[in-house]
């Protein structure tokens, strides 16, 4: 049962070393949030600033998002999924491998705030966390202990890459195991009628505000001009039309196919709690079953859509 403070100290130490040794000009990590149940991305450039870095059960945002297009040497505090995204950034030529130093943090999963507030609906003014197994939330006249296992994000509950194996260093003992996403719900959904499926996905995105927080939080979405922002021609209307919204989610799902590491940043960022990852999971399932490809697990693997086999099976093409 690792103490969070231990990991925090190790991260600070590694960060300072990375800065001192010139492996990095900046360390991208997390600092304590200003409200309970959050952390914030933090850019440490001096030894003093490294003291603000922390490890937490709320380190949800994927920091690999800050890598694309960055010049200069950078050290990244990364969970298993983040490290995979960082590797993806390298294989997709968004950052030079030589400029990237990964401080890997074996991760036991991050907490979904919505599950916490479902368990403790009273306004929470403080969250105390000492280990990576439970938290205590406090508010006006109450103090409730919550087991992390009960409030894990869904992507964390099915994570099998908890230890960032390609990291330059690890700041804690490896964490392994866990049951992989069996896509049971997606498979069950695909067994339903076309109408039911359409209804399911339309209902899924009915609250979407088209703020594109999912896109902006996603380390895969680094296009200088996203297709939703193209103006000539303008592919998507800007209104709340449900079909425009659907097109956005479908195309984003396609664009992330074979690249998504299930880091859950999109769902964390979504202000109206849409299960954005459903689209990515459909694609993930397709990619895995067709090409057995999992992104971000080696430096030299090529993303499935940058290559082909002459005998790729596609029976539906007549």
């Amino acid at each position, binding site marked *: 049962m690792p103490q969070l403070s231990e990991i925090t100290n190790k991260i600070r130490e590694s960060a300072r070393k990375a800065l001192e040794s010139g492996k990095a000009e900046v360390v991208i990590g997390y600092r304590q949030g*200003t409200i309970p149940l959050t952390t914030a991305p933090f850019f440490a450039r001096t030894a003093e600033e490294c003291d603000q870095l922390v490890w937490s059960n709320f380190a949800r945002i994927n920091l690999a998002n800050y890598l694309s297009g960055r010049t200069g040497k950078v050290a990244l505090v990364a969970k298993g999924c983040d490290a995979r995204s960082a590797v993806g950034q390298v294989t997709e030529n968004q950052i030079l491998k030589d400029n990237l130093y990964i401080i890997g943090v074996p991760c036991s999963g991050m907490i979904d705030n919505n599950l916490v507030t479902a368990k403790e609906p009273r306004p929470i003014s403080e969250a105390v966390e000492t280990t990576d197994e439970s938290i205590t939330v406090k508010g006006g006249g109450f103090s409730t202990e919550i087991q992390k296992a009960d409030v894990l994000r869904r992507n964390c509950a099915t994570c099998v890459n908890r230890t960032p194996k390609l990291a330059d260093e690890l700041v804690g003992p490896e964490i392994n195991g866990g049951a992989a996403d069996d896509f049971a719900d997606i498979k069950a959904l695909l067994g339903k009628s076309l109408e039911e499926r359409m209804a399911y996905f339309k209902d899924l995105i009915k609250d979407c505000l088209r703020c594109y927080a999912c896109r902006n939080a996603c380390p895969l979405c680094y296009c200088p001009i996203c297709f939703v922002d193209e103006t000539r021609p303008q592919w998507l209307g800007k209104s709340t039309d449900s079909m425009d919204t659907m097109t956005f989610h479908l195309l984003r799902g396609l664009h992330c196919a074979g690249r998504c590491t299930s880091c859950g940043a999109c769902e964390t960022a979504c202000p109206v709690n849409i299960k954005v990852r459903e689209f990515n999971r459909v694609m993930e399932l397709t990619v895995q079953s067709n090409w057995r490809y999992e992104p971000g697990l080696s430096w030299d693997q090529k993303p499935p859509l940058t290559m082909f086999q002459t005998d790729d099976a596609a029976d539906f093409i007549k």
Partner: protein
Amino acid sequence: MTEYIVKQNALADFFKSLASGRRLLTPRGTGDKCKLGETPPDQVTLEYTNTHLSPKSLLFPQTERLMAFHNERDKPNGYVYQSLGDNGEPTVVFGIRPCDARGISISNKVFQNDRFTDPYWKGKIDQTVFVGLACDAPSPQCFCAAMGGSPFGESGLDALAFRQGGDLGLKTLTDKGAELIKAAGAQEANLADEIKKLEATAIEAQGVKADYKPIDDLDLMDLFKDPHWVATAENCLNCGVCTFFCPTCHCFDIQDEASERGGVRMRNWDTCMSWLFTVHGTGHNPRPTKTERVRQRFMHKLKYIPLKQDGVRGCTGCGRCVAMCPVNIDIRSVALKMTQTAPSPA
């Protein structure tokens, strides 16, 4: 400015009267599903923190059709835009929080500015009576008092309601509000002292001691040029969640959509966090990176709006952006940084 009281056992009749002849909108649902909705009078609840999204969409929907044309070029008015009207209907909003009502009064000065009146906004606001519900239990991210408001704030409201044990206290603030409350059968009562006491307790409970006054006194250009903006914006994702949730963010985009039969001109919420927001046809962009865009948002809330609206800040302290920001950019911390701006030698 008269106070009234509605006894617990008369509440059902009171809400019934509010709803007679008009729509009654009150907050419904919990958590991220809490929003203003048409409510049968017997289902009005006072148990909620605040609506998930700000109530601005009531007067300024995310998508609003402004005008339409039919593609009949041979007819006299065939290919010409005609207004679709303001779509307003008589409405009572009960239970809007004072922070959000203040947001509406700030936006009202934009939509009805010194030169132009937005007919779509005006059509709706003129037909709406706002009865606020004071906050006796502010949530942890609330800071209206620090921004110059109050959990018992009156700006933008026609009447303010507050919980008085099991009863409902009311203070009318405009003629529109007085007419409504009187007609609903509330009884006059002298509650001025009581309100003062409750307000003080509520402000105390908020416990925000920050003083943002220095921003008001600092020079616009000093605030603008301060080097902190680079670090402040560094972790911003430029997603715009803050702007979509903000009760005073009122920026929009005007778009035409057309088919063979005709077309519609509509306006949609837009966000200053997007690079597309300001880019010129030539490709030149006055706010090219997230640093300028983040600075624009906070300067707009905390300096530009106060300069244009007699010192009233564009942030009402509702705390939505603080709670919703995926990377925890907290307007309170940013405002604090702004107060520390070094004034340039005169």
